[in-house]
């Protein structure tokens, strides 16, 4: 009996050490590239590099397009997240799958799809042409590509937030004869707001990092479609230091977004999708 106990304790210890080893491997895998980026260029050189006009142009374009993409996704995504959270309707499963697809689709495939759909010769090309629109190679194409790949993040978070609103509040609102839209704006949205915020932040971060769909659908043109990730990729082929400087900048932005989400959501939202702390 005693020996069984010791051997089970020994195997527990082995299991624990395996957990630790596996975790260390993964943390190194994810963390070392970040450390390497930061260590590569001395801070003084970095600041000097960051004053480069081409870099600032790419940064400005990245910020503008990702903000527009996030706004578009928020405006268009909120209604569908609401419908998915509160209603059942025929074809719901299919729509859900469609809305999740961009998360798993290789971005380059997304770019080809966007070209074949919204390109000049694409399915919707003639319709767009009727309005005098030609999307590929324009800044609009960058926003469209970013919105395409990033929308699922907002919809998933918002939908979960709306669905988690306690039914009792909604019942209470109903007994007070609140109309459904009044309930949405006065009860559901305020309660789900942290989820919306987290979803919007994830969307923004994903849009900011978008590469594959952008270079395929929008092409690469400084000042028009060359966002930071594209600038990094192209600089990598000619000027490694510049590429590293830009990468560090992107890294700082991404860390900022993640920290922002963590700071904003945990105390506002007990059960937020991105904000569960281990202590709870």
């Amino acid at each position, binding site marked *: 009996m005693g020996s069984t106990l010791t051997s089970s304790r020994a*195997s527990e210890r082995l*299991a624990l050490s395996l957990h630790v080893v596996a975790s260390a491997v993964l943390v190194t895998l994810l963390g070392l590239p970040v450390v390497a980026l930061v260590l590569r260029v001395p801070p003084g050189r970095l600041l000097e590099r960051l004053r480069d006009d081409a870099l600032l142009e790419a940064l400005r374009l990245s910020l503008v397009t990702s903000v527009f993409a996030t706004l578009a996704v928020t405006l268009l995504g909120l209604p569908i997240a609401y419908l998915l959270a509160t209603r059942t309707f025929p074809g719901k499963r299919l729509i859900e799958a469609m809305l999740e697809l961009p998360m798993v689709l290789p971005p380059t495939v997304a770019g080809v799809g966007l070209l*074949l759909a919204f*390109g*000049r010769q694409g399915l919707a090309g003639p319709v767009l042409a009727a309005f005098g629109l030609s999307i590929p*190679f324009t800044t609009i194409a960058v926003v469209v590509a970013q919105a395409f790949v990033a929308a699922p993040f907002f919809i998933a978070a918002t939908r979960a937030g709306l669905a988690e609103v306690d039914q009792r509040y909604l019942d209470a609102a109903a007994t007070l004869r609140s109309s459904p839209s009044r309930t949405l704006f006065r009860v559901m949205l305020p309660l789900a707001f942290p989820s919306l915020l987290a979803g919007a932040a994830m969307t923004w971060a994903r849009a900011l990092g978008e590469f594959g769909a952008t270079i395929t659908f929008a*092409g*690469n043109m400084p000042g028009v479609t060359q966002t930071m990730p594209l600038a990094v990729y192209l600089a990598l*082929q*000619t000027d490694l230091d510049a590429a590293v400087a830009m990468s560090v900048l992107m890294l700082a932005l991404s860390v900022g977004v993640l920290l922002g989400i963590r700071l904003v959501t945990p105390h506002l939202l007990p059960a937020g999708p991105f904000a569960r702390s281990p202590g709870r």
Partner: protein
Amino acid sequence: MKRLASMLLLSLTTVPALGAQTSAAPREITVYAAASLTDAFSELGKLMEQDALPTRVRYNFAGSQQLAVQLEQGAKADVFASADQRWMDHVQERHLTAGPAKIFAHNRLVVIVPKSNPAHVRELQGLARRGVKLVVGAEAVPVGKYTREMFRRLERRPGFPPAYGDSVLANVVSQEENVKSVVAKVQLGEADAGVVYRSDVTPRVAPGVTVLEIPDDANVLASYPIAILTGTADSAAAGDFLALLLGPEGRRVLARRGLTPAETMP
């Protein structure tokens, strides 16, 4: 728990074995080649497999500038074929080549427009018209560098307006990172015109595009150097690949794929 632990251990110990190669395996080499060589080299790869001493050739086709950087960063390869001397120099300066580089082929630029020709580009002068969507290689990509040089040369020819080069380059809507992306954007009909190599107008591409020739005196003759790399694991197989490429069979393949085999052959 015990079983899970032993399975984890087992998987950890077996991982290194996957990297080991048995000596009985057929010869295999890795060739880093400019994107514009895709068709010609793929055909050569098939010939190598049918050789008396069969060799499997793995390819990494990309923009020469990208390949050069990958090699610089320690990528394992046996042979490097660049679309210009600049990126071969880059690799040579870092002492990554074993022996001198040989020019094995030349290529010429052509302008392609989609068969539908949405911008009605019928001659080279038409590329300067406002609103024409032109797609070219980025400056760092060999084809991009050649393209810019070619437009400057055209500008000095009779029949072309004085600011021709600037007007054409102002029409560029995208600077692609390799020549095949330029082809794709024209094939899809999204670009009104693109500048590519003659060899990129492959039998698969040709039906969808119209080729505008560039006069000889304005055209830029792209030269392709090739070299065996110091990191080669099988210099004999790599040597055989070069011998095939530089020999009569290789020359035939190059010519069939729209490249001009280099005249001065060793």
